[in-house]
Structure formats: structure tokens, C-alpha cells
């Protein structure tokens, strides 16, 4: 994890690519969707059949913060032909890519956001809330100052207005609260420990069955000077 961040900083990156961002949060203990980086059309098809259809293809780059708007995301691809077509379209956009992410398509009705930010007075703070495309419109989020206890994390889950989404909902099982609690605690620890991380955005975290799976992530970096406080 350290090396991913160090390398990116050395290259002058402001953010980590989706692939690298997910590796960082995965090493902190969060569940992410199965995915691999493909360097060719052929490789993309082979990864897709290994993961199992349907799959998602995404152009992967630290310069692509708005992938959907840039046409770099192709969802719900059902066979090799569709994967090949999607691969060509993504690589044809003229964006400088690290490769194309071929990932497991996670389905679920409930989407949450987990995150980390730094407050000038309180330092690193963990966020939890309702995620997905309406995150900013709904604005149903809550914060705690990192690092946090499991109790803090549990309170966060109960504190959002739509906390009912975490219970059994429209025929879907109750969300595994312990998994979300562990994830929030891990994000807090990561932010408290790693001064190089300025912000983390994990959105959406889709509830698949009863398990939270991160399907997109963004880690924003900051340069730290010797002796400067991480807070």
C-alpha cells in the first residue's frame, strides 16, 4: 500500500487511479468487487470469462475523475463480443489510460458512501452516508473524528436519516452491520495513520445480498513535509 502511494507521489499524481485506490482500501480490509486491469482486447475477454458475465469495463487512469461523463464506463456486458466492443470504445476516447478495468458487475438496490476528509480544526474525519448518484442531492451523511471505535461506527449507521435502509428492506436482508462497522473503523485508521492521504471517497458501496462491496473508490493524495503534522 505504501509503495502504491509513494510511487504515485513520486510521479506527481494528485489522485490514485480507481484500480490503485481500491488496492489501498482493500489492503485496509474493505471488500471490493473482483477486477483486473487489462492491457489488450484479448486480455479483457479472457479476464471477463474468468470473472464470469456480466462484467463492467472502465477506463483506468489517475486523470479520469469523471469516468461516466467521459464515456469510460460500460456496464452490464453479457458476452465476449460486447466486451470487445466496449474495450475499443473506451480505448478510442483518446484518454491516456493505465489500462481497462474488467470487473465483476455487482448488483444491489442499496448504495452507501464511505469517506475520509481532513478538517482544519479536527483533522482526519470519517464519513458515512447514503451513496450513489444522489449523494450530494440527498446529503444524508454523518462524521466522526478519526480514529474511531466500533461504537462510534455503529452510532454513525444509526444516525443517518435513511438508516432504515440498513434493515431488511423490500425483500432484501438486513445489511451486515459488522462489515460496515469494520470498514468505517479501517478508513479512520488509514486516514489517521497515512498523512499522505488527503481524502478518500468510496462511492458507491453497493449492498450485495447483505454484504457491502466497494465498486468505485478515489484516494486523493497530499504532499507532506518533514515534521508536519498529519492532522
Amino acid at each position: 500500500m505504501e509503495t502504491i502511494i509513494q510511487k504515485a507521489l513520486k510521479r506527481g499524481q494528485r489522485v490514485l487511479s480507481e484500480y490503485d485506490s481500491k488496492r489501498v482500501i482493500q489492503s485496509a480490509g474493505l471488500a471490493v468487487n473482483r477486477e483486473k486491469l487489462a492491457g489488450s482486447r484479448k486480455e479483457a475477454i479472457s479476464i471477463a470469462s474468468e470473472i464470469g458475465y456480466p462484467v463492467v469495463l472502465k477506463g483506468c487512469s489517475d486523470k479520469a475523475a469523471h469516468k461516466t461523463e467521459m464515456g469510460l464506463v460500460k456496464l452490464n456486458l453479457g458476452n465476449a463480443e460486447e466486451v470487445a466492443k466496449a474495450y475499443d470504445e473506451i480505448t478510442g476516447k483518446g484518454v491516456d489510460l493505465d489500462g481497462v478495468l474488467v470487473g465483476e458487475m455487482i448488483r444491489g438496490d442499496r448504495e452507501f458512501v464511505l469517506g475520509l476528509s481532513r478538517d482544519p480544526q479536527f483533522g482526519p474525519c470519517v464519513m458515512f452516508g447514503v451513496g450513489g448518484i444522489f449523494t450530494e442531492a440527498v446529503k444524508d451523511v454523518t462524521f466522526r473524528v478519526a480514529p474511531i471505535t466500533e461504537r462510534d461506527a455503529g452510532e454513525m449507521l444509526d444516525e443517518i436519516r435513511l438508516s432504515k435502509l440498513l434493515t431488511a428492506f423490500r425483500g432484501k436482508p438486513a445489511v451486515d452491520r459488522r462489515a460496515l462497522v469494520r470498514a468505517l473503523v479501517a478508513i479512520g485508521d488509514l486516514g489517521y495513520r497515512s498523512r499522505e492521504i488527503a481524502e478518500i471517497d468510496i462511492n458507491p458501496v453497493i449492498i450485495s445480498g447483505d454484504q457491502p462491496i466497494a465498486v468505485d473508490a478515489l484516494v486523493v493524495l497530499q504532499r507532506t513535509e518533514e515534521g508536519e503534522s498529519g492532522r
Partner: protein
Amino acid sequence: MSMSPAMKIHEARGVSDMEKFFNPSSVVIFGASNAKFNLGAMICKALRDAVQYPGQVYAVNSAGDDVAGAKGCQALEDIREDIDLAVIITPASVIPGLIQKCGARGIRNVIIESSGFSEKGEEGRKLQNEIDRLARFYALRIIGPNCLGVLDIERRFCCMYGAEEIVSVLVRHPGPVSYILQSGGVAELVGERLMDDRLGVNKMVCIGNKSDVNEADLIDYFDTDHTEVICVYLENVKDGRKLMRAVKKTRKPVLVYKSGKSEAGRAAALSHTAGMAQNDAVFDGACRQAGIIRLQSIEELHALPKMFTRMPLLSGNRIAVFTTSGAFGSVGADLLAGTNLVMAEFSDETKSRLSRIPGVFNAANPVDIGPAPPEIYLEIYNILLTSGEVDGMLHLAGMWRDFVQDVMQALVGFCRRQRKPAALYAYNSMGKLLAARQEKELPVFYTAEEAVRALEVSYQQYLYLDKKEEPLWKP
């Protein structure tokens, strides 16, 4: 985290160096003179007349005149006796020089009331940095600048100007509530409202620009003195983690009203998280995490503390509403519905005990009674508070009959014995209510909303006490 050596000395100093801000045996007022509208003179007058300060007061002015009982002198050097505290109310530009003199003389506590510092642009900021540097150099503690200073009712010290009238009333009833206020205006509001509500102030501090002493230092200090409830008004937080640590350490309720809710988040944030991490949302989470009771209005600063000083904590969420008006029964139930408290459900046994009492219109919750003698009130209180089905009471009664004050007083005693609180409100006879508050020290609230809030914050504190563990981070 790197820290200059001077900084370390500063941080290492504890609550003991707060003592002389409140309990000095001698004080020098720089800038107190007999000129018209002189603020320093007002402080001398307040010390002599409003609190009858028992210590020695010196007034430093160019003429060396005595001021309102304070011994006059032209310079600090003219005073030979020991000085515990310096209060400065002079033009800002001469203050660094005065701090230097105080430091060299061995004075360790300074209150700077003058304005003209960081609140006043670049020049002011430079001046404030200069006094910060001097404070560290001489290891002295500073309250302010740009503040109204300190009031200690219990030990009769006051260096607030313009507060003489209020202070001379408050001083008659020392009590257990202490205030940390980042505004002189809020001090005036709170002080004035408390004149007719015998809450009992212990201390009040206006912290102004808080170049050195801040809310966390004072919470630490109030954790060690006779304070029972700590009320805070903040416009900004300097060191959020230090504040959280201080609150986590004390078991006394800490009530905070913070202004500046609408402050916008950092526009340059790259992630959604940072975009939504507005100052207020983070502060709100920090309050819940540390155990700060966040107040919803500035009036709650003076209205709610009595719930903590006069009543036991609410240790469960089941509330019985008692009323002499069906309307207020409904109002009470509606107000409770907006909180995490619930209307207590009565067992058949409780209901039948209530229904056997003459004059009870509704033997369920809310309990509604018609005209009845005092014994009936007392019997109902007894049934409700000993049923095991009720954690607290919301008492919404008319007070036009004189005995209602007496039964309310009996109820307060009963609540203390049963370790269950009642929030008291009267929907008529406001004059009697105010008299009852003053004479019988009844914790009566001004509105039904306030009474419900009182129950809510009492329960919040009860829940907070369960998680007063050390924070996970290092200081």
C-alpha cells in the same frame, strides 16, 4: 508532530495556572482612570460595589489617581506588593510593552480586554502574534484579547465592565453553573436572563480571540472546581481534538451553542466526501463522539442548565405526561414524538389505580385531571414515579391555584428521592411562575418546548456518561 520547546512548556501546564484568573488576592487594572466613560473605572467599581471583592486593587493611569477605591499609581513599578493578576484595558498598541513588564515582574496571569487584535486585519494579527510570543517567553497565561473578562460569583471577583447591575444581582445566589463565552454580548444576554431565574452562576469567562486560554483549558479547570454544569458559546474551535479530550474527561454536562453553522465547505475539494465535510457537519459528529450536548438556540444556554442542577438525570426514554388541560396533553405528546423519548405505556394495574382517583379524566398517558385538591396531585405523582413504567415526567399544569406551586415543590423532592426527573411547565399565571422560580427555586421552564428539550438533553447526558472513555488518538 513537531513542537517548539516553548510550546511544550505551554502545553504541559495544567489547570492550576487558571486559578489566579478567578481567585486573585490582588489585581492591577491597566488603563483604569477617572476620565469620562473609562472602562477600567467600571471594573474598579464592579469590584468594589457589585461583588465587594476582598482583595487588593491597583489602578494604573498616567496621573496615578485612585479610581473607585482602587489604589492609583503611574506605573507597575510603583506597586511593591505581590500581584496575582493583571487586567489590561488600554489602547492595543501599548499592550506588548505591558505584557513584557508583567512577565518580568513575575505576573503569570493576564486578561486583555482591549480590542484591536486578530479581529482587526493584518496589523492586529501582528500585534496578537507579538503578545503570543511574549506569553510563551514569560510562560504566562492570557485570557483574551478582545473580551469582557472574568466573573467569579463564588469568590467575588469580577473584571467585566458594564455588567455592574447584573452582577450585583447574580452575586446574591452563587451556584453550580459556569459559562465559557466567546462573546461579551452573549454574557450580557445570559446574565440578564438569569437575574429572574435563580440558576446560580459559579463562574463566567469571556474568552474573546482566545490567543492562549481557550474553551478546552477552561473545561479542564471547571472539571476540578465547584461547577456542576458547563455552558459554552463558541464562534470557532481552535483545536477540535483538545476540546473533545477535555469533554471526554469530565462527567459534568457540557452544553455548547455554536454559531456559524452556514459556513461553506472547501470549494476546492476533489472528493464528494470533502465537499460535504462542511465545518458544521464535522462539528456535529465531534459533539456526539465526545459527549457534547449541542444546544439548538442561544436561549438554551440559560434555560436548560437547571434541569441538571435541580433534577436527577433521565435514565430511560419512557415519559409520563401529566396535565390539567387535555390540549397540553396533546401538545406534550406531539413534542415528545419529535425526540428519541416515548410516551410511557401504562400497565392495566397502573391504569386502574389512576382511574380510581376522583377527578382523573384520562387514566392513560397523558394523565389529564380536572379541578382537584393537592392530595390528588401527590397521589398521581406517586403512582407514576413508582410504577416502574415511567423514567421521567413532563408536567404541564395550570398554576392559577396557589397550591400548585407547593405540589410542584413536593414533586421536585419526590423526583430526587425516586431518581427520576420531571420537567415543569405552566401554561398560565406567568407572574406566579416567575415568583415560584425565584422564591422556591423551582426548575420551571418558560415553554412546553423547553421542558421537552430539558428531558431530551438530560437523557442525552445519561447516554453520554456511558461512553466517557479516553479518545483513541494521542494528545
